[in-house]
């Protein structure tokens, strides 16, 4: 019966009382910490009422309610209680943070407080020599000294407190066991005041054990209360004395077996305040090399993810549920990092915690629910979500991850409203780019005739030396034009330059004359000869005599005596044939034509100018 009363007193809250005479005070476990550490906000409410503080809202700080401890006194029927609400603050970034005034119904708000968060050092600091094992080494379990009964005496009642071990890693669970022993019947319900914790978070494991035992030959009934403690930061954490106030019968008052004896000799009960010695716990920092997404949890975790629908349309919403479970300080677990998916819009998450006991270990599951909206159609894979933690059994960091989720996103309804949830719901309808990406493949046969023509044009531009052809043509044309202009400006020179060609035309015509027309052939031969020299000398052909030609050629370099003799011979032979053309056969005409050609060739260079 006594143990039941004790358990009820330990486990139950204070009875509600009218809200009156309340006062609230808030304290922080530290005002300076490094990123990755946690800080504890304690809000103590004292007075004869019952109220709960509202958790403060601090930007970039995750806040978890860690529980409350309560002490209660009843004086003259008036209930007075002191309740300490504990919140865990987990900053997400460095900087200066302000804890705003905390409102407690019926009490004045607490004054604001400030704490600073510095960047975490690159490596975890090693313990000083002689202070204990290196951070990566496991804490050494040991028995903490418990408050034992005075040696040599067997008290009627006493209380002990014992730690599972006195050295642990930051955020690693250590079990505190408080046992209350009594060898006499209790008068009234005992009052339990939980130990004050500094640098520790506590989770009650409940009033668990009770039974009887014999200590130094005396029988005791005992009941025990277990709590899971988590060091918040590296260093020495303190567990204050646990106090149990009981009403015990005075010595000798309840010794008689007779009812009347007990009734008439009853003495007033003796109020006894029993308490444990304070304990300390050395918290070691976690080993270096923590993953980037390390959540600070020491224990063992699993991650599972699911969606409420695997097929949806673009613009529609689905709920992504992520459950992180296992052993450890689940309450302080932050949300796993969402995957960076440009084709998906995530909205704020809601979380809930369900705590469980696994033997003496506390754990449970924390559930995060997030609304996601698919922005584009097509297959959508949500990659595995991961949570890193430190596994004390394996003495190493580990990572739990969920399985990937595959969704099918159908094209959105063109008549549907734009985003069903979130900030975009109120925007005007229109086309908005939701994700930038490259465009799709292009078939190689997509080139049309213009493209092929331009390709051929490009090939033409790479033909190289052939591009010299029009330039050469232009140069030739230019030269010919210049020559033509020069000749047009000098008619005599033009006639002289074309003399040989004109002579050659007449010679060919003479050679082509039929045998019956010898006179015509001879006449043409004569025109060829006289015409050549008339052109060269710039004189009219009609009436040009051999004498005049010979006189004009005198003194010229080319006019050699032999050449002049040949000229005279041909000239005279033609004069002779002109009057007797029948004497000229075909062979004779050919010979004379060749003679004239040779003469023209011989005199041509000299007479060019």
């Amino acid at each position: 019966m006594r143990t039941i009363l004790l358990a009820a007193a330990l486990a139950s809250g204070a009875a509600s009382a009218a809200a009156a005479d309340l006062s609230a005070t808030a304290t922080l476990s530290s005002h300076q910490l490094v990123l990755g550490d946690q800080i504890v906000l304690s809000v103590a409410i004292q007075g004869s009422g019952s109220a709960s503080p509202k958790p403060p809202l601090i930007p970039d700080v995750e806040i978890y309610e860690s529980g409350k401890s309560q002490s209660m006194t009843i004086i003259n029927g008036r209930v007075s209680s002191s309740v300490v609400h504990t919140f865990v603050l987990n900053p997400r970034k460095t900087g200066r943070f302000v804890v705003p005034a905390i409102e407690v119904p019926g009490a004045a708000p607490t004054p604001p407080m400030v704490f600073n968060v510095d960047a975490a050092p690159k490596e975890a600091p090693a313990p000083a020599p002689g202070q204990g094992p290196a951070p990566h080494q496991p804490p050494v379990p040991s028995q903490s000294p418990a408050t034992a009964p005075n040696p040599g005496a067997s008290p009627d009642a006493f209380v002990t407190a014992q730690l599972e071990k006195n050295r642990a890693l930051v955020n690693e669970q250590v079990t505190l066991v408080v046992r209350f022993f009594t060898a006499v019947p209790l008068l009234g319900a005992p009052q339990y005041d939980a130990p004050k914790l500094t640098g520790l978070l506590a989770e009650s494991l409940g009033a668990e054990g009770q039974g009887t035992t014999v200590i130094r030959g005396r029988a005791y009934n005992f009941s025990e209360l277990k709590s899971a403690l988590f060091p918040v930061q590296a260093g020495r954490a303190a567990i204050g004395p646990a106090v149990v106030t009981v009403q015990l019968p005075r010595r000798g008052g309840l010794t008689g077996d007779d009812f009347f004896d007990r009734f008439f000799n009853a003495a007033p009960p003796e109020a006894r305040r029993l308490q444990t010695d304070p304990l300390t716990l050395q918290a070691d920092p976690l080993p270096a090399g923590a993953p980037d997404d390390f959540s600070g949890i020491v224990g063992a975790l699993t991650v599972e993810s699911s969606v409420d629908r695997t097929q949806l349309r673009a613009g529609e919403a689905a709920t992504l549920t992520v459950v992180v479970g296992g052993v450890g300080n689940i309450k302080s677990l932050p949300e796993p990092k969402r995957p960076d998916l440009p084709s998906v819009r995530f909205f704020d998450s809601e979380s809930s915690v369900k705590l469980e006991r696994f033997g003496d270990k506390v754990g449970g599951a924390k559930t995060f629910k997030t609304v996601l909206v698919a922005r584009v159609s097509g297959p959508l894979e949500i990659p595995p979500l991961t949570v890193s933690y430190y596994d004390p059994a394996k003495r190493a960091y580990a990572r739990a991850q969920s399985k990937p989720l595959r969704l099918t996103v159908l094209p959105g309804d063109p008549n549907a409203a734009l985003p069903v949830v979130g900030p975009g719901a109120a925007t005007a309808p229109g086309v908005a780019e939701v994700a930038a990406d490259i465009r799709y493949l292009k078939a190689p046969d997509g080139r049309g005739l213009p493209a092929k023509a331009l390709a051929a044009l490009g090939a033409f531009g790479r033909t190289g030396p052939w591009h010299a052809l029009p330039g050469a043509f232009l140069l030739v044309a230019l030269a010919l034009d210049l020559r033509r202009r020069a000749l047009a400006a000098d008619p005599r020179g033009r006639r002289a330059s074309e003399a040989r060609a004109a002579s050659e035309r007449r010679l060919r015509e003479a050679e082509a004359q039929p045998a019956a027309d010898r006179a015509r052939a001879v006449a043409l031969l004569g025109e060829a000869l006289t015409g050549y020299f008339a052109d060269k000398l710039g004189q009219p052909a009609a009436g040009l005599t051999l004498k005049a030609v010979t006189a004009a050629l005198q003194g010229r370099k080319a006019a050699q005596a032999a050449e002049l003799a040949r000229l005279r011979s041909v000239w005279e032979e033609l004069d002779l044939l002109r009057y007797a053309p029948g004497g000229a056969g075909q062979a004779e005409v050919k010979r004379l034509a060749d003679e004239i050609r040779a003469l023209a060739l011989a005199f041509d260079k000299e007479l060019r100018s």
Partner: protein
Amino acid sequence: MILALLAAALALPAAAAPYADAKAAYDAGSYDRAAAAFEALVAADPGDPALHYDLGNALLKAGKLGRASASYQRAFDLDPRDGDGRHNLDFVLKRSGEELAPPGIPAPAFAAFTALSARELAGLHWLAAWAAMILAGLSLLGSPERREALRDWLLGAAAAWALFGLWWAGLSAVLPAGRGVIVAGRAELRNGPGEKFTVGYTAPEGRRVRILSESGEWLEVGLLKEGVKGWILAASVEKL
């Protein structure tokens, strides 16, 4: 000739099958396999801008930003008017800190300036040159009446020659020959051709460079955007 045409006709269906395989691999998300298939198609027909574009898509999806940028650049050089090609090239250039249009030049103006490729401008330039020189030659050789008849044609051809020539020169200055793309992540640009020289700059994968000179395994490159230069391992650059 008939045999050649027949062989070409038979080759078309044969090339279609590898393309279908490459496309199927791309659609299935096997981007490495798709990239290998598109590479084979590009090797068989390097003048097709669509194949370079498709290869760029597969390489980018496979996580090879630099090589994808090089493929898109080749597709752009062949067919600068393709809107999809311009979009994808601009997409990868932005990932490496660049944009298709140089700073300070409006995108529409740059699009108009690059509406014709350097090859096409070269072809137009030479075509106009041929026309102008032949017309000039014919004018010189012809009668005064012919000269008068050809004069307007000659002036038009000469103007086109000058226009396309200047355009070609301008485009060659903006997109010069001897370019490359960095295909290594955070490539180091050193102050000389060797490991013993200090690192002057680092450049992201996909950044376009101009190759200035070569020395063994090292290339001297200039960053087109920043106007700085340095020596980089040749294996870190894919020449265009």
